[in-house]
């Protein structure tokens, strides 16, 4: 990434350029909708009302956002150390495996309030473990983290198929799924909790995990900006060589950061397995790891930005499902297209609009003094 150029005011650099980039992505997505012969404005309307217009829509939106926060934070914290963790997909998968194994073992003896912290630890440990080998290889053997984490995504998927087909599936059952975990071990849904207080809400997959997501955001914010480890992490991200001169050991920082990153992605397992699916199954991680990249890029790697971007992608995912009902011409994979466009414009083409904006600001600042003179 090239360093910040000083030709723009700070607010424009932090606020305007990302906004313009996202806007460009949505304009191109709108063009795709036009090609399909539908009205983009109408599509936006359907998506917004589908995602936010009802308690049910809102619940689904926030449920998706919970997963996106976990994977978005995972990508973001690695970015701060100058690393690209593309393996959120696999780490989330294995994190879910950890949660599933724990629950399948203990669900009849313990209830959810005791199991929840254990499940969180299991998700963190399994996610971190899946990131550990690529992390170690990156730090000590110099093999590129992007390639190894891609390979580990595929390895995770092979491992899960093997386990669910041969080991964990119910005896005699043909479908690659584990048995259901006991009802007492399942995380309560938000709708049930609110129901206990007499507030009626439509039943949605939204569950207590969203609170864990909030805690994870706070953790990342404190860790990256308010601890010595975070300082070391950002130093390594800025310049590995400078970090060495400052007495930081980059290898250890890389190892620790990537394990934290994997652990955060692993938390998807708590939401999915303990909160929603209540059993181990194939592909519950579908696409969340890759969406995390879009979320992190759009949220500029800051926890607050990640939350906002995660909610936006929650809206897109839920609204996209609604859209495919209302406008059958638009497949729900439109969300994947938008993700790709956001990654393209906020990531790879991040500086596309900069020369234009610089010219604009130069023009404005040239005119302002002349106004004063007059």
């Amino acid at each position, binding site marked *: *990434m*090239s360093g910040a150029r000083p030709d723009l005011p700070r607010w424009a650099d932090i606020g305007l350029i990302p906004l313009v980039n996202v806007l460009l992505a949505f304009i191109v997505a709108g063009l*795709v909708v036009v*090609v*399909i*012969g539908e009205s983009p404005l109408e599509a936006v309307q359907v998506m917004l009302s589908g995602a936010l217009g009802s308690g049910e829509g809102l619940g689904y939106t926030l449920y998706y956002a919970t997963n996106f926060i976990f994977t978005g934070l995972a990508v973001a914290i690695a970015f701060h150390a100058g690393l*690209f963790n*593309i393996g959120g997909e696999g780490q989330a998968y294995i994190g879910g495996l950890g949660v599933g194994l724990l629950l399948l073992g203990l669900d009849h003896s313990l209830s959810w309030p005791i199991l929840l912290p254990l499940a969180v630890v299991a998700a963190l440990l399994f996610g971190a473990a899946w990131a550990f*080998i690529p992390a170690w*290889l990156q730090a000590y*053997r110099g*093999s*590129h983290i*992007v*390639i*190894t984490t*891609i*390979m*580990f995504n*595929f*390895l995770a998927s*092979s*491992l899960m*198929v*093997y386990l669910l*087909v*041969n080991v964990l599936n119910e005896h005699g059952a043909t479908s690659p799924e584990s048995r259901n975990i006991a009802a007492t071990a399942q995380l309560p849904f938000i709708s049930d909790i609110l129901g206990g207080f007499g507030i009626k809400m439509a039943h949605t997959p939204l569950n207590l995990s969203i609170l864990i997501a909030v805690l994870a955001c706070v953790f990342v914010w404190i860790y990256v900006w308010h601890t010595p480890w975070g300082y070391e992490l950002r130093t390594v991200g800025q310049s590995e060589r400078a970090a060495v001169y400052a007495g930081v050991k980059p290898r250890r920082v890389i190892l620790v950061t990537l394990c934290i990153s994997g652990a955060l992605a692993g938390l998807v397992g708590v939401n999915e397995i303990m909160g929603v699916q209540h059993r181990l199954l194939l592909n519950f991680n579908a696409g969340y790891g*890759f969406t995390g*990249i*879009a979320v992190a*890029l759009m949220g500029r790697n800051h926890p607050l930005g990640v939350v906002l971007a995660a909610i936006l992608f929650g809206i897109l995912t839920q609204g996209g499902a609604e859209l495919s009902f209302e406008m059958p*011409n*638009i*497949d729900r*994979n*439109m*969300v*994947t*297209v*938008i*993700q*790709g*466009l956001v*990654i*393209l414009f906020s*990531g*790879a*083409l*991040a*500086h*596309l609009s900069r020369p234009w904006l610089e010219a604009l600001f130069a023009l404005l600042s040239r005119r302002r003094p002349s106004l004063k003179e007059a």
Partner: protein
Amino acid sequence: MDPELLLRTLAAALRLSTPLILCAMAGLLSERSGIVDIGLEGKMLAAAFAAASMAAVTGSAWLALLCGIVIATLMALLHGYACITQRGNQVVSGVAINLLASGLTVVLGSYWFQQGGQTPMLTDLGRFRPLELPGVTLLNGVPILGAIYRDLVSGYSLIVYVALIAVPATHWLVNKTRFGLRLRAVGEYPQAVDTAGVSVTWLRYRAVLLCGLLTGIAGTYVSIAQNAGFSRDMTAGQGFIALAAMIFGKWRPYPALGACLLFGLLDAVSIRLQGVRIAGIGEVPVQLIQALPYALTVLLLAGFIGKAVAPKASGIPYVKER
């Protein structure tokens, strides 16, 4: 093992290797010029969709091939624009291209053909069918040689032969031509190339264009030669296996070919072994064999099987000194 079965398995391995070989050569050309390409998968998928759509509409395999190549090349140019001109992050751009391809193929496909993202099944007319090389009937009577010629040398679609020619062609281009010398130089030390008065930008764009051409052929093969139509995400990670094969071959054409053939063979064997019990071992877990390419590549990258060194300047945008 029954020799007939052996020949069949080897032939199947070559068929399964074909998209890997084309993509590995594509990735090799791109990465030797310093442009990391994890978007091989996306380009191949987009080309597969474009080719199958064109074939479904026109019934012409050749137009389909052209269409596949054009679409893959356009995506390659997008990657090139982001990485070379805009100096963006090459991995990020690759991820974007993969997601765009995965989404757009289904969105456009389900709108155009109304079959949930699939293209209509093709008849033989719009496909590249297996060719029978001259002399098969002549040699049929000859023992061993006749069978080998019939089952292993003849009987592939044209694109398989194209892939096999692409390997020496890539080797020649990269190692024996002036363009290749400059290409390798620009991937290792672009400053030197620039100082010599050769355009880094144009060299890298040409590499990216070649990458688009080859991934386009690979995608076309997947949808209209190997299969009779497009289905969603049909490339199923083969672009990444090709990437692994390229690394496994240490960014050199012939070793990369070897890796592709090995990975194709593993795939063919795992299909053959599905549900088969082998005496003494029991049922072989197919997933284990399918995971081998990835596991082997990680082991290689870890330095346990030789050492894989990427082109020095790959992944780093070139900024001309002012």
